């Protein structure tokens, strides 16, 4: 009798584990987080008041989205590239747009093997802020002039292209 029940319980627990994992995956892929309303409201509050204050938001967003792979000092490790050369793309023709594309649509290149995941779900304001954060840190000095900063409108303009990470790689500015 005990063994009979034990078998049923074992299979039930096994099934529950898979269901739990699927639930987790669904929550993650739908960007669900266990948090309170205030945090969410604060995170999505529009911050486009005049004098776009990207510094704090950029740092926050970097910690949240980038730091795990590119590390706190932006030096990267192993299959994750260092961010020290990001600024140089601004000088290339089409480099500015490409920089935005690789954030929105991701990037898959032979060189780094691990693809950069698309970050298109990040709001315009935050994406602009975090790219500005990159351009002012991690060895990207001298930083771009104030008029060269990425603005939320710039991000919005690159959306809707439907590129794949591989296509973004093909658009890499020639050097």
């Amino acid at each position, binding site marked *: 009798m005990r*063994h009979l029940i034990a078998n049923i*319980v074992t299979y039930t627990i096994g099934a529950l584990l898979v269901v739990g994992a699927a639930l987790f995956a669904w929550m*993650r892929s739908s960007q669900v987080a266990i948090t309170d309303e205030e945090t969410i409201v604060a995170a999505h509050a529009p911050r486009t008041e005049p004098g776009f204050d990207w510094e704090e938001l950029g740092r926050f967003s970097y910690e949240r989205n980038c730091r795990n792979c590119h590390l706190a000092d932006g030096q990267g490790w*192993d*299959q994750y590239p260092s961010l020290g050369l990001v600024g140089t793309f601004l000088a290339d023709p089409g480099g500015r747009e490409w920089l935005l594309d690789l954030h929105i649509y991701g990037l898959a290149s032979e060189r780094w*093997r691990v693809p950069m995941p698309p970050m298109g*779900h990040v709001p315009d304001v935050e994406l602009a802020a975090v790219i500005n954060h990159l351009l002012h840190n991690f060895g990207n000095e001298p930083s771009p002039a104030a008029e060269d900063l990425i603005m939320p409108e710039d991000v919005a303009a690159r959306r809707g292209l439907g590129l794949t990470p591989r296509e973004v790689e093909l658009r890499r500015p020639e050097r």
Partner: protein
Amino acid sequence: MRANACTYTALGEAFRQPVSAVSGRGWNDACALGLLPNLADIVDRTISGVFWIGLYLLVVLVPVFLMLVPPVPSGRSFWLELSVALGFVGLTQIAVQFVLIARFRRMTAPYGIDVILQYHRKIAMVAVALILLHPTIIMVENPSRSVMLNPLGGNWASRAALVAVLALVTTVVVSVFRERLKLQYERWRFFHLVLGVVALVFAQIHVSLAGLYINTTWKQAIWILSAAAMAGLVVWIRGIKPLWQRAFRWRVAEVRPERGDTHTLALEPVGHEGLRFSPGQFAWIKVAETPFTLEEHPFSFSSSAERRDRIEFGIKSLGDFTARVGEIPVGTPAFVDGPHGAFSIDRYNAVGYVLIAGGVGITPFMSFLRTMADRGDPRPVLLIYADKTWNGVAYREVLEELSGSIALDVVYVLEEPPDDWEGERGLVTRQLLERRLPEERFPRACFLCGPPVMMDAVYAALVELEMPPAQIQMERFTLA
């Protein structure tokens, strides 16, 4: 320790009243004689059984869902996230295995530790399958990641994962094919332990290095601490528990040869009161100068549960250790971890019993019968005892003696009977059971103990004869 059949609990009270009123005797009398099903115990057991399973699921799933607490990295595709979740669930599952094998009696008593160990084996397969799905999905999602299969190609996170997976797969292969690999039990046990710890430690390194999901100090801390606690359990089982066992030393009081290559090993407590067990339970025993040994074997008590100052085990010569039992000198120190197990008449009370033994499977039943004799238990018992030859029937003289003092009927079934044998011959078949089972068999509880093949066949036959499966208890002695 399991609640004694006659301990009162608040929950049990409600069930006791009406039953004891019907019985016409004092509840305690009836209970002591085991005449009534101990409902209170069943309720207690069910509640604590459900409690532990709930806690178990919580422990396995909560760490995974903790990773939804911000700050979290942006979610990726469903399949990628599923692969990660499967990896995490598999890992926590492997980690919990260390608790399962730690033989915490309070935790295992509701189910019986044999069931827990059976679960340990089965769920390990499930966990390893889930863990293998984790890299598989990742690589199908992006084949360029297969470079991580090469120890030189990936990063330190993927290398740690490779070691962990290798350790896990080796553990499974070695455990499943131990007998075919002719691996000695103790050696296997050692490998199993080491590989298990290696798998856990390297899996944790993988999680910490990959780091995407435990991106805050407190999340890192929770994961590392829990992994360390699980590995620490090994220290508890192999280091601290033996230390504690040293204070409860036993000595070999007698080694008595029985029929059929069987020995009775009798132990006496040294400087303590001994041990209280339920008839039919078993203990892991180490017969050695020191408790710090991996040579430890589970054996059923064969003596009366009413005697705690001298415990006996029936041991048939089968493997390395059991073949040497006869040579153990009296006075050798021994250490006992027990009692364990749920195969007991005290747990499944009934108005009478049907016991079906195959060979050395008689041992727990010897404990049943001797206990009943000591208690003056009047309930009828039918023992169907199958063995090869008449000369090899262990304890048959004792059984003869016991049928004088308790209501015991023994039916011997011999596979190779002597020429003048008039009793049952062959195997315990459905026809035999139909012939021999008492008319009023349905209120009786039935216990099976013997070789797995026999138990399966007899179980099927009993179910065909409309014996309710809930009344059939089995002891599967493949604990390894």
